[in-house]
């Protein structure tokens, strides 16, 4: 939940972007699309867990539950 979360997401994003360019240059557009989707799903999974933690905290702080 610290700063490393942001750096991990940034690393995945940049990696996917580079891989995408690489694959597009080498003529494999579909695989480029697949890697983009894969990177997006990985980031989504990470984010969903963090957002769940965030909303639980907000619920306990503001007595929402």
């Amino acid at each position: 939940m610290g700063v490393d979360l942001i750096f991990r997401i940034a690393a995945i994003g940049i990696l996917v972007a580079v891989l995408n360019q690489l694959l597009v240059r080498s003529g494999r557009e579909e695989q480029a699309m697949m890697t983009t989707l894969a990177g997006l799903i990985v980031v989504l999974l990470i984010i969903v867990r963090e957002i769940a933690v965030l909303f639980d905290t907000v619920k306990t702080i503001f007595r929402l539950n």
Partner: protein
Amino acid sequence: MEIVQIVGIGLVSTVILLILRRQKPEIAVLAGTAAGAVIFMIIAAKLSAVADLLEEYAARADISPMYFTAVLKITGIAYIAEFGAEICRDAGEGAIAAKIEMAGKVIIIALAVPIITSLLDLVLKIMP
């Protein structure tokens, strides 16, 4: 001091988002959400301390707990609605952001109804 840490995180994630937004806008939106979550988690401890303090003062001033918890709930709903709406607006979806804000307002009004009714009863009782 948390404020230095928060500003540092904000600047770093802004720079990262600038890079990401050109290559992969969809991952940039998620990185923005993560930055918002991290910054809130830093102040979460202080916020809950303040909320407990206010609740204790409300109890000491023998205000019925219903009112104060309603105020706290409304604040929480406002924060979550604003959190979601701003992320949607950053991603360029102004329409969805407006819908989220409208939904937040409706939920807040629904929460405020018992307070409004008790206020009106009080006013009617006072009137001759």
